[in-house]
């Protein structure tokens, strides 16, 4: 098969968008946190918590949208822990984030094991189904690539526009961006730096959790140990790649999804000559390359990682 044929197939872009969807949620969540000045390394654990909580809520009968709500709440909860530790207490964002990842992951695994002590094959739920929108789903190419995905993918695309609109077109967004660049100036305006930062981290974490929930409620229909497999960390790299902009986040996630979908197809072509692990490494190597490409010109939010205390000038 020719490379061009692969790239022009709607099924290829369908796969790319499916791979990109959880990353879109994750990168948007990470950039909302970081725009407010807080690096959230809890992301890997929050993905796990979202995947577990959303799946379990559906399994217990909450319905799919109820499950998403539960996942978002779980993400917000862990985000709140990270926010309290790093914003008013000003503790190391690196260490607190790793702590939240360890906590959220172990709590998810413990809860899953406690609820299902000895199941050999994980129980399955009925996940989100591919959409069949009149007209749109029948469009050539894009109908299959985008409008035949599940509702969660559409939600991710909508969230890109909502996040961009809030950040760049509303006073709230202006305040969030300012609090990540110059918190003292925000306080001088009579706004609460703590409230803005805590709020951004909680909301951002809820968005991350939706990325995790996509895996158990849309891409698959069950929860597995280790299923997040570094996707959260990939999002942190993509956030830098996207220069903390929602539109670029979408492009970055789609590019990543396209590369990943491409290497899977390449594997079926040349898989016999190379060990499968070489292909499995590609997403992580790609993330590092993406970081190297943008490193020199990366324009980090100026107050990222810098704690700020009330009354400080």
């Amino acid at each position, binding site marked *: 098969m020719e490379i061009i044929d692969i790239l022009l197939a709607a099924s290829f872009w369908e796969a790319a968008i499916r791979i990109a969807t959880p990353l879109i949620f994750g990168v948007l969540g990470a950039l909302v946190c970081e725009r407010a000045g807080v690096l959230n*390394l809890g992301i890997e654990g929050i993905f796990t918590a979202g995947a577990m909580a959303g799946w379990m809520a559906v399994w217990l009968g909450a319905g799919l949208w109820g499950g998403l709500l539960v996942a978002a709440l779980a993400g917000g909860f862990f985000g709140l*822990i990270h926010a309290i*530790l790093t914003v008013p*207490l*000003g*503790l*190391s964002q*690196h*260490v*607190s984030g*790793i*702590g*939240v990842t*360890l*906590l959220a*992951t*172990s*709590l998810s*695994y*413990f809860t899953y*094991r*406690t609820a299902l*002590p000895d199941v050999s094959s994980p129980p399955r739920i009925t996940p989100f189904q591919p959409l069949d929108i009149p007209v749109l789903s029948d469009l050539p190419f894009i109908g299959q690539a985008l409008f035949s995905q599940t509702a969660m993918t559409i939600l991710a695309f909508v969230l890109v526009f909502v996040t961009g609109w809030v950040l760049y077109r509303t006073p709230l967004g202006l305040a969030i961006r300012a609090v990540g660049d110059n918190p003292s100036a925000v306080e001088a305006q009579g706004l609460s730096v703590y409230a803005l930062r805590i709020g951004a981290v909680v909301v951002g974490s809820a968005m991350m959790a939706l990325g995790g929930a996509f895996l158990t409620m849309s891409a698959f229909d069950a929860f597995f140990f280790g299923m997040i*497999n*570094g996707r959260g*960390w*990939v999002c*942190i*790299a993509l956030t*830098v790649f996207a220069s903390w902009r929602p539109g670029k986040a979408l492009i970055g996630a789609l590019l990543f999804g396209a590369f990943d979908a491409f290497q899977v197809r390449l594997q079926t072509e040349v898989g016999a000559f190379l*060990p499968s*692990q*070489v292909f*499995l*490494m590609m997403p*992580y*190597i790609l*993330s*590092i390359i993406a*970081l*190297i490409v943008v*490193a*020199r010109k*990366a324009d980090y939010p100026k107050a990222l990682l810098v704690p700020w*205390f009330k009354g400080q000038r």
Partner: protein
Amino acid sequence: MIRFEPRSNPGPFLTYGVPVIAAGIAILLAAIPLALANAPIIKAYGLMISGAFGSVFSISEMLTRATPLILTGLAAAIAFRAKLWNIGAEGQLYMGAMAAVAVGAGVIDGPSWVMIPVVMIAGALAGALMLIGPTLMKTRLGVDEVVTTLLLNFIVLLFVQMMLEGALKDPMSMGWPQSEPIIDSAVFPPLLERMRVHLGLVIALMCAIALAIFVKRTVWGFEIRAVGENAAAAKFSGISVTKTMILVAALSGGLAGLAGVSEVAGTRGYLATDLSPGYGYAGIVVAMLARLSPIGVIASALFVASVFVGADSMSRAIGVSSYLADLIVAMALLCVLIGGFLTRFKVHFERKSAG
């Protein structure tokens, strides 16, 4: 209103007491998940204590677990001192283990006094190189080391898997992806007859003492602390930040690599992809509980190891998931972070006065 006031001098009680209290609170908090799992709480705690300390065997098991944790704890402690955020100890551990197997599984042969240092040096070098790479990318290209070291953990594990199915595969393993065993003369001998605790523990303790002296008493140690406290000021006073960072990377990666050597040559005897149940990540908790003190790392590694061994044994007895151990360790990390805050600041609760 709550007001925070910096403390000028925390004093010994806060410095040494807070981590102990934080660990204690994490243990007590475990009662909540135990209750939710419908487990007999008092009995569960009893089983955990006897599982970790109840017999010579259980103490030996606990010390066997503590050995890699001391080494990865030291790796995190020295890196975090210099604010080099090495979250890649897990990958460095596996690279060290793989290097140990590469030279220690029969390629070269010799007496123990040759082979044991050889596998240690090979493992430490591999671990060190594994961290020097991301560190150079940080100093030369400005690439954030947190993400690169994290992502390298996944890359290394896949690389190990690939090697175990290829060049390093044991032809006698009946298809299991594992390496050939370390030859007898490279095996770390056990410290007690019929027990698993091995030479690695002595090596880990010696590393902790050596590192403590290095950090406190040498110029390099001073430079590392200076760079960690204020890199700009250190640079201004003529310290080469890049050189210091690479030294720290070599030490930190090397120690994590040694943890891998110790697991392969002391505990397992061969390399497999389940060699480490997250020792690299747990090392971060160990280092933070020790407040980045090398000697403190010994104590906190013993604590974390006893939580793991105790919870494993409790889990086998009454069927509560052993993920409880990971939960306790994670809570201990968050508790000690908050505790660290309380040592640096006094908290005042004030009633808002009218007007």
